[in-house]
């Protein structure tokens, strides 16, 4: 018996030694492969059919649009279109295209291809008209050629004509200020019409209420013009893209990028600490000191492109009065909360959109924390001190603009109580109820919420918040002046005029106080120190084109 036990122990020890010595393969030497960890698997590699950041992170390496944002900024620069001009009060757009660009399958990029893409979106029918299929198209262009589903807007797009190889003319049914800025976003990238036709990009069905693409294009043959091209996708495990050596612009330095989904943020952190990955996205703010403190790791910051704000629901309560709203603004200790609970990644917000975006007003009414003034305002209003209010906050969540909602709430509650309010707290889990309650206006007089921009246009911020429907539902107000200004700015085709209009709107908003914006946060990525030139874009993407490892 003893003998057997001894042999077993020796065998186990031998195994352990084997594991240690033969183990650990991942790169500690310089390589031209970058392994990146995201939070989830892409849905489809056809960006026109997706709405999640995980998909866009991959497609933005393989596809390009007519225009793009300068990497890391919100400035629009030429990409596949070299020059553009709008005429007819913004209803006709002419694009002069770049010469000599080829799709990954060798077919040429030209005006015919551009029109093929626009017409493809416009002509979608059946299952493709479901919002679960084409969210962004519907958000910008409204409806399709033949609207088959109820609730679709009339279409914005009219037609596209190719004049020669390199001139495309797009006609819209009415003027739109959002059409041009939206061309930078991933869903509107130019895809190879040949490949789409060949591999059934427009084959899909509605199954159990959810859209499913059934062609192989979105899974095995995504074809764009970008600096990387598709190699393989093992669903749920990794996407692999390789350098496009025939790229028209600056060729990528990396030969290969592998993107791996790891849903838990701590697991992502540990994967980086263990050097199983070279970089990862969506670093939890609490991990930033850990990353900075590690001698082989670093933090890459995204420019802030979000806003956290306190909704003020006017409804039937005391908030209908401007004085009470002003008292709220003076009673929120925004600086204190941002300093304490944003782990160094936050900045106090003075307007409902980030400062880096055009349309940001240079001067607006500001409301520094002032409990005395707040009390004065309350006492001269119809809601004397203590003014009773209901304040909602979400639990079980951490948002990029609001990493710690519970503590934000606690900080605000304390400062409001100091300022003559009597706050009754309410909370609901983010999933599944909180957002719905906020959106429909049943989350008290005040609630915490925010927004990360999809694309670099003020309409994506203030337009989303204060359009007629949302203003009514979420904020409980209807203000003709704000509404008309919003619509005017949205449809103004002249860029300079648009900027001025949005600046005026922001000034009005900060006087009217439909809510109180309080923070812009800079979300972060974690990376190894030897990863260079990895650029994080404000709207949530990552650029691998210029990156190197080691």
């Amino acid at each position: 018996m003893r003998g057997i036990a001894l042999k077993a122990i020796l065998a186990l020890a031998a195994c352990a030694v084997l594991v240690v010595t033969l183990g650990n393969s991942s790169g500690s030497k310089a390589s031209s492969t970058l392994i990146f960890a995201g939070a989830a698997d892409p849905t489809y590699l056809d960006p026109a059919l997706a709405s999640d950041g995980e998909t866009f992170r991959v497609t933005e390496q393989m596809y390009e649009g007519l225009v793009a944002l300068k990497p890391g900024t919100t400035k629009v620069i030429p990409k596949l279109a070299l020059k553009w001009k709008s005429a007819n009060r913004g209803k006709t757009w002419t694009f002069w295209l770049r010469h000599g660009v080829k799709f990954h399958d060798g077919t040429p990029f030209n005006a015919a291809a551009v029109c093929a893409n626009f017409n493809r979106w416009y002509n979608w029918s059946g299952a493709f008209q479901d919002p679960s299929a084409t969210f962004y198209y519907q958000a910008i262009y409204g409806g399709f050629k033949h609207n088959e589903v109820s609730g679709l807007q009339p279409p914005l797009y009219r037609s596209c004509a190719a004049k020669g190889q390199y001139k495309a003319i797009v006609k819209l049914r009415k003027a739109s200020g959002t059409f041009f800025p939206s061309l930078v976003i991933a869903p509107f990238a130019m895809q190879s019409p040949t490949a789409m036709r060949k591999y059934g990009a427009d084959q899909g069905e509605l199954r159990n209420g959810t859209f499913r693409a059934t062609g192989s294009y979105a899974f095995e043959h995504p074809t764009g013009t970008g600096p990387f091209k598709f190699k393989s996708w093992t669903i749920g495990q990794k996407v692999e893209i390789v350098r496009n050596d025939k790229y028209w612009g600056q060729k990528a330095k990396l030969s290969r990028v592998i993107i791996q989904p790891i849903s838990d943020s701590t697991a992502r952190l540990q994967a980086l600490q263990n050097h199983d990955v070279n970089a990862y996205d969506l670093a939890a703010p609490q991990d930033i000191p850990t990353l900075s403190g590690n001698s082989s790791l670093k933090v890459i910051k995204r420019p802030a492109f979000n806003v956290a704000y306190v909704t003020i629901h006017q409804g039937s309560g005391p908030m209908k009065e401007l004085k009470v709203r002003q008292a709220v603004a003076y009673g929120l200790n925004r600086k204190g909360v941002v300093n304490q609970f944003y782990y160094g990644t936050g900045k106090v917000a003075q307007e409902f959109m980030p400062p880096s975006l055009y349309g940001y007003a240079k001067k607006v009414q500001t409301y520094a924390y002032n409990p005395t003034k707040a009390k004065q305002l309350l006492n001269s209003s119809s809601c004397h001190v203590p003014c009773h209010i209901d304040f909602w906050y979400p639990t079980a969540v951490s948002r990029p603009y609001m990493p710690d909602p519970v503590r934000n709430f606690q900080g605000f509650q304390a400062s409001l109580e100091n300022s003559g309010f009597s706050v009754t707290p309410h909370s609901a889990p983010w999933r599944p109820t909180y957002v719905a309650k906020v959106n429909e206006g049943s989350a008290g007089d005040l609630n915490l919420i925010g927004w990360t921009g999809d694309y670099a246009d003020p309409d994506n911020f203030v337009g989303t918040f204060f359009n007629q429907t949302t203003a009514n539902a979420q904020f409980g107000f209807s203000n003709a002046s704000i509404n008309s200004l919003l619509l005017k700015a949205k449809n103004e085709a002249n860029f300079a005029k648009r900027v001025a209009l949005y600046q005026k709107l922001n000034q009005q908003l900060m006087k009217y106080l439909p809510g109180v914006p309080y923070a812009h946060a800079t979300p972060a990525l974690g990376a190894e120190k030897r990863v260079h030139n990895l650029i994080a874009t404000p709207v949530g993407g990552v650029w691998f084109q210029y990156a190197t490892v080691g």
Partner: protein
Amino acid sequence: MLRYVVRRLLLLIPILFGLSILVFFWVRALPGSPISSILGERATPALIQQYKERYGLDEPIYKQYVKQLRAWSHADFGTSIATHRTITYEIKQRFPATVELAVAAMIFAISIGLPLGFFAAKKYGGLFDHASLFISLIGISIPVFFLAIILKYIFAVRLGWLPTVGRQSVLIETEHPTNFYILDAIITRDWAALWDAIRHLILPAIALGSIPLAIITRITRASVLDVQNEDYVRTARAKGLAPITVDQRHVLRNAMLPITTIIGLQVGLLLSGAVLTETVFAWPGIGSWLRDAIFNRDYPVIQGGILFVALIFVLVNLIVDISYAIINPRIRYS
């Protein structure tokens, strides 16, 4: 014998039926809707209403149940709202991962637990007995996710011997005909992939295996103690057979019987433990799938996934009961 099997199989029907009703109503009792989870701040009331219409959630509940039954009869178990892939597809991808993990965990538990229990019984009442009991009980006293985190921290993050997440290194290119990575590697004779798969399996298997370890140790110990005092063992010893032969030929063989039945009962604990272990190790199996689905309110996944897990569990128990009945005829007539 046949009558017993048939009787048990028939009993399966009301159980499955009851389960399907239970899960169906439970899923609809869950507060909130998936769209608000997936679209987050973008979920306007208009969109939520559209969704309700599309999924037929406005219809009376019995109509919805009938529709659901009809879908199930076509082997249509729904489509995941988050990933847009069918439940059947996801199960095909993820179930082998969980099975591989569970099997590895059982192998770990048996290879440690069996000898541990055997020697504890041999040295009954002694220090080794108490020590082995202690060790095996620690296994079920540590929350499995805590053990998983500690193992990961020590062996992966600190020592760097083993990987932190997943089933396979992203740098390995290999075919997966069966989706059981170890089997696949052997079939395709890809030895690097085999080694890589084993390395990824070690820590999660140990963490998960800590649960059955305790029970296997105790059951082995108990049954060895029982068998040792049986008459036929005493006879064998009296005959003059060497102790080792007595052990091998009589004690071990008969002590194994209760252990095989225990294995069936462990499946439930393994599936529960898998939810937590897979989350910590980002193991792409059924456990992490269900956990993510519950958090995202991905209704079709929750429904299809839980039904599937329950089905497996019931089937395994059925097989165990039937095999026990084959071994022990007294049971059939109860």
